[in-house]
Structures are given as C-alpha cells and as structure tokens.
C-alpha cells in the first residue's frame, strides 16, 4: 500500500491549533510522513495513512524534521 493521502483531504486539512496551511513532508517510502505547520512549528504525523491531527501528539518541527523527513 502506498499510503498516499487523498488529495481532496489534503486540500481541506489545516493545523488544528492555528487553522493555518500545512506543508506535506514525505518519508523515505514516498508517502506522507508529516504534515507540518510552520507557524506553530509542529509536525503532525501520518500513521498508517491516517493523519494524526492532535496538538498533543504533534512533534516539535526541528526534532521531527531531523528524525525522518526528506524536506
């Protein structure tokens, strides 16, 4: 399974905290790994193809960026 998110879903997802735009960060497998909010410096993980849009489970952007993405 590629795990790629539905483009329609990506179009309407925003940061739950500031309702701002999200940037997709792809993982090594080419699937979405994180949805990043630059304004809040939070990365929302995508787990098994499900975006986890919970502030308390988001990773601080610097830490998650060094952990796995290829942005």
């Amino acid at each position, binding site marked *: 399974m590629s795990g790629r998110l539905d483009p329609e879903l990506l179009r309407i997802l*925003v940061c739950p905290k500031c309702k701002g735009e999200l940037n997709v960060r792809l993982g090594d497998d080419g699937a979405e790994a994180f949805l990043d909010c630059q304004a809040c410096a939070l990365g929302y993980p995508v*787990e098994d*193809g*499900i*975006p986890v849009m*919970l*502030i308390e489970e988001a990773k601080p952007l610097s830490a998650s960026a060094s952990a796995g993405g290829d942005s």
Partner: protein
Amino acid sequence: MSERPGPRPRLFDTWSRFYNLRWFQWLTYRPVHNAVLAALRQSDSLRVLDVGCGTGLLASRIRRELHRTRVIGCDFSSGMLERAAAGSRDVAWVRGNALRLPFRTSSFEAVVSTEAFHWFPDQAAALGECFRVLTPGGRFLLGVMSPASEGMSRALRLGSRLLAEPSNWPTRRGLRAQLEDAGFKIETQQRVYRLLGGLLLPPFLTVATRPA
C-alpha cells in the same frame, strides 16, 4: 487557554473491540444511523464530515449508500480508527479533536455526529467548530440521547462524573439553545425509537443549518 483534557482515549480503544458486533449495533446505534441517512438523502450533500465517527460504521454506510458523497470520518481514538480503516478505505479517516477540528472553514455541506456529543468536554467549542467547517446553508445532523428533564440531565452529569467519564446529555430544549447560541438555525428535532435506553434516555436527531 486551559482546556479540560476530555475523555481518556484508552477507554474508547477498549470499547472499540465489541462495538461492531451486530446485535450490539442493532440495540444501540443502528436506528440513529438510519435516521441520519434518511435526513442526508433529503438534500445533496457532496462532502460529509462525521465527528466522533468511532469505528466508522455510519461514515462507511453513508459512503456506500450515497454514492456521490465524499466522506471524512474524524475521531480522537486510535483504536476506533484502526477498526474504521480496516472496514473501509473509501472514507478518509482523520484523528482529530472535535474541539479543534483540523479542517478549513466552509469545507462540508453536512456534518454529522451520533452518540458522541455527550463526551465532548466543551460542547460550545465543539458546536462552534462544527458551525465553522460547514458551508453557509450546510446542515448539522446531531444524534444524541436526551433526558426528559433538566433534573435528570443534572443527575446524569453528576453520576457519570462519579462512575466513569464525565458526560453531559442536555435536554432537547437545552440542546436547541446550545445550537442557537452557536449560530445554528434549528430545522427539526425528531425522536429515534430503539430498545436500549429508549425510555429513560431516548435518542433524538436534531437537524440544524448554518444560515446562508
């Protein structure tokens, strides 16, 4: 901003295990789902959000029965969504909190929520979010059990706090007032008949619109 943390996800992760049993569904949620589907059929809702979708039975059914509809199911429990995703790939599943929905303003022609509202620790915030993500003229279909009196609603609130997770089941009138405070216009409020809890806590489906 201080926010009550809300119900413990683990309770829902455990609950999700027997949630999908057929007999359990017929006793509990199925009649409410039927009412929601009947209401959705009355107008063309191309994009539907299910808030507190649980294991996704209603969201999957909407997708199956209303072919042109695009459905997003949102729940904050990973256990519930795991089962939801195993059941249907035609619905987009998102882990999210009803008090802080991760969706753009005016994204849905319909928002549905069944048997979840009583768990929301800040119901006004949840209603505000449902209002926000609806398109002007969009409809909110809210299925929740309603006690007959304010006294009973208060007693249940206290009891639930002592026994398990704090829950708040407003009366029908209370719910209408909450919806109007959030800016909604009430369209209909109908009783849904089912066996379990039918007399003490009958479920009602309230349909409200975000004024155009």
